[in-house]
């Protein structure tokens, strides 16, 4: 047993149990991989918990008790004095030492698509320049092009009208496109069995797969000579990566059956919970950027806001808290930045629809950063009494992305060549990283 494993077992087990995760004394999931975390050269990773639709900041992390905008929820103490969070996020409240709440996000876009493009690329949609999504940019910097697993994996992310243009590799090209896991295209929140990689398994028995690939390779070798060029190189690379995934051992990363039942329960038996568990398995295997999308109807609570948020929190709370704890137990939290965000917040004003709804609100909203590179245990920035305007330390979309780059050691002014042959920096050079939330 390595020292690390020795350290983990007792003390961490107690902590994780205290945090609401309970399982038997047998922990087969500690083996082999736990040592990976000890590698000092270990790359950093990022997990984005994407709250599509836009979650209400006032009902989650920026309470306005007693105000007419405050809503009916109670707020509870977190483990960090002075930071209170929604009563429906009790497990997350216990993770606050790892988390930094940014309460002063302020952006310009109130339409789902434009706002998603802005927060996920740092740029407004343009006609001709196709800006890469943040996951593509990060995976290009941190990923190993030869790795068995793709460097950018998006779990439960759906390509809809509302997200169009926000989850594309843009001018970086298809090598940096996310592998979509569980892209069912359905609006309902799926079960965990939906979390499969489409078309990863060959449809004929394995001996025939070997023959087929052999014949394909022979045909390609014949064709390749004298035909250099971008199109052929791209086909070659795409097939090589697809074959690594569908015939290699890497696909085991997606198999959640190997996880203990109790841990699976702790994450929550739903697509988001199991998606968070899968994210941990992927990060453990060195995937630099994983997105877990909340899925279902998201957070777009124009009506019936309060029951809606409460129901969502019941899914979010165990999944997110268990993820933080699970990463910590495995020594992965120091190298994994976890962040929680949507495309905007929701209006302080409560409309009269079905017991009260909240509208899109980009002017002032919250998001939460945590884990590696982040100085947890703090709330940064401040909104006014009603939660409608940022009073202190405003943070823009580029500021946020620059901060995240700093957290994982990516030089955000580094330039890539765009599809219009103009060098474009990862994040605008004018962005101001929020150094106060960086560890």
């Amino acid at each position, binding site marked *: 047993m390595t020292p690390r494993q020795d350290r983990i077992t007792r003390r961490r087990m107690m902590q994780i149990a205290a945090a609401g995760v309970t399982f038997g004394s047998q922990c087969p999931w500690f083996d082999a991989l736990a040592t990976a975390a000890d590698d000092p050269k270990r790359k950093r990773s990022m997990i984005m918990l994407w709250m599509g639709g836009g979650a209400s900041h006032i009902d989650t992390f920026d309470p306005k008790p007693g105000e007419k905008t405050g809503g009916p929820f109670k707020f509870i103490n977190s483990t960090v004095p002075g930071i209170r969070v929604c009563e429906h996020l009790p497990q997350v409240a216990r993770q606050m030492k790892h988390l930094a709440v940014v309460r002063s996000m302020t952006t310009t876009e109130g339409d789902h698509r434009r706002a998603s493009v802005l927060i996920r690329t740092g740029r407004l*949609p*343009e*006609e*001709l*320049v*196709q800006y890469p999504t943040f996951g593509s940019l990060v995976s290009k910097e941190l990923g190993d092009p030869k790795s068995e697993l*793709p460097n950018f994996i998006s779990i439960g992310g759906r*390509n809809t*009208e509302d997200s*169009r*243009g926000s989850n*594309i*590799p*843009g*001018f970086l*090209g*298809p*090598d940096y*496109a996310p592998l*979509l896991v569980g892209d069912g*295209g359905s609006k309902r929140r799926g079960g965990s069995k939906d979390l499969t*990689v*489409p*078309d*990863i*398994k*060959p*449809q*004929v028995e394995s001996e*025939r797969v070997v*023959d*087929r*690939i052999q*014949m*394909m390779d022979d*045909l*390609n070798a014949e*064709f390749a*000579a*004298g*035909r*250099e*060029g*971008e*199109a*052929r190189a*791209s*086909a*070659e*690379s*795409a*097939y090589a*990566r*697809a*074959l690594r*995934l*569908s015939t290699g051992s890497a696909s085991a990363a997606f198999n959640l059956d190997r996880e203990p039942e109790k841990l699976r329960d702790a994450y929550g038996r739903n697509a988001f919970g199991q998606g968070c568990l899968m994210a941990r398995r992927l990060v453990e295997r060195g995937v630099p950027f994983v997105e877990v999308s909340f899925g279902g109807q998201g957070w777009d609570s124009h009506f019936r806001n309060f029951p809606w948020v409460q129901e969502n929190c019941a899914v979010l709370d165990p999944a997110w808290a268990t993820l933080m704890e699970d990463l910590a137990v495995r020594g992965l939290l120091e190298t994994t930045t976890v962040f929680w965000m949507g495309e905007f917040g929701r209006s302080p004003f409560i409309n009269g629809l079905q017991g009260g709804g909240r509208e899109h609100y980009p002017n002032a909203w919250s998001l939460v950063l945590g884990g590696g590179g982040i100085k947890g245990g703090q709330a940064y920035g401040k909104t006014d009494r009603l939660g409608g305007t940022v009073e202190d330390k405003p943070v823009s979309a580029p500021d946020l992305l620059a901060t995240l780059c700093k957290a994982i050691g990516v030089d955000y002014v580094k330039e890539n060549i765009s*599809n*219009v*042959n103009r060098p474009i920096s990862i994040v605008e050079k004018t962005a101001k990283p929020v150094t106060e939330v960086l560890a």
Partner: protein
Amino acid sequence: MIRFLFTLVAASVALFSANAAPPDPTILAAKIDARIDEQLKANGVKPAAPASDAEFHRRAAIDILGRIPTVAEARAFLDDQSPGKHAKLIDRLIASPAAINHAATLWRYALVPQAQRVQFIDVTLEAWLRAELRAGRTADRLMYNLLTAPLDYNNREPDGKLRPAPGVSPVSFYQANDLKPEAVASSATRVLLGIKIECAQCHNHPFDKWTKQQFWETAAFFAPVPPQLPDEKIRPIAELSLRKTVSMPVKDKETEVTPKFMSGNVPDWKGVTDTRSLFAAWATAKTNPYFARTTANRIWAQFFGIGIVDPVDDFNTANVPSHPELLDELAEALVASDFDTNILVKAIGRTAAYQRASKGTEKAQNDPRLFARMSVKGLSPEQLFDSLAQATGYREPIPAAARAAFGVNPDTPRGAYLAKFAGGAQRADAQTSMLQALTLMNGAWMSRETSPETGETLIAVANAPFLDDAAKIETLFLAAYARKPTTGEREKFLSYLLREGDAGRKAQLADIFWSLLNSQEFLLNH
């Protein structure tokens, strides 16, 4: 740049307005080859050998029809011993209805770049383009009609979601530009003139001499583009068609700007009933050197994979054409044919440059701007799916006409494929992604089409009593590659086919077909 550009206009007036007879494609082809050869010679590069008949056939079918040839077409072309069969093939392909569908797809790609694409925009715009092309519109009329199209209808449902226009209308082009005069103007100048002025929207152009003032003066021609009303309706354009002012933001305030041509000329409003029509007429005039050049250049890129000016949408002083005289000659031919782009297709199809092999014999041929060998192009998602369907014998259950009216149905294999892969960057479009590779190797539809029980081509080939094993393999090669197998390939695949005797033969035939369809020779246009 402006001054340079419009001296150019003045100089070309005589050249372009001369009432020349439509050019002869064979003569034009010789001119093209002379220009290409000039540069090859200057660079000391020897061109590649001519393509085989099969390679040429497959390439021309993909470039003109958007799909590979059928087995019967492939066989017929290989067997044809008549002189001039290459030229005859090009002319036959152009006359096919599929050529119009493919041309409509290409125009749509140019008009609505990827990042903005939504299914219904693609579909309704493409349906309109198709109808116009079927009605025989030449490039100038097509663009004129686009820029002056009526726009009066309600485009939103009560839930606020965009809906396609009733009937066939190009209004989705305007919707893709957020119904904003300035966005429509930048799209129009980019597509028609190959000039990107959108960055002059906020400040003067960094490379060229376009000013912010000029940008907004151009945008003012599109002042009639109806804004969204608060009730989510588009106001009937009749009320707005003569509107002539847009507001240019200047620091904290806004200034009213009225239309003026980029050439500096002041428009003459006599008899004009739609402000947009003056820009449309000016941009598509034979005397406007940019429209003919941009259109000719785009056609060239369709066939060679790279423009004479490249990127094709970016004509500027720093972006030098590889063959400037050639571009002028192509533009001139286009003007002389009253913007009938088929003249260029016929000529290009007849050139030695287009008929060259994609396989190079020396490194120097790899420079794509020399056209020493045919460049290997990726297939667009549409080309790839339609070619797979052709090879496997698959027929979409819903006829193309129904598809055109109400959108791609994501429940059909074609709709699902396009919904999944029609995204990303424009040039990267033709690149292969890992997801695409997974879908082609393991996807349900492909598995169905490469199964001897369900794949139409495979069923036919496996069960044909008149085909022996060698003929079966040959048919699969013709279906996928439009060529017959080489002797080596024939022997190798025959021995694979016979490896397990009769029992495994069908499965092995399927394995062979699968490897053909997943190979680069199939996936690429070469």
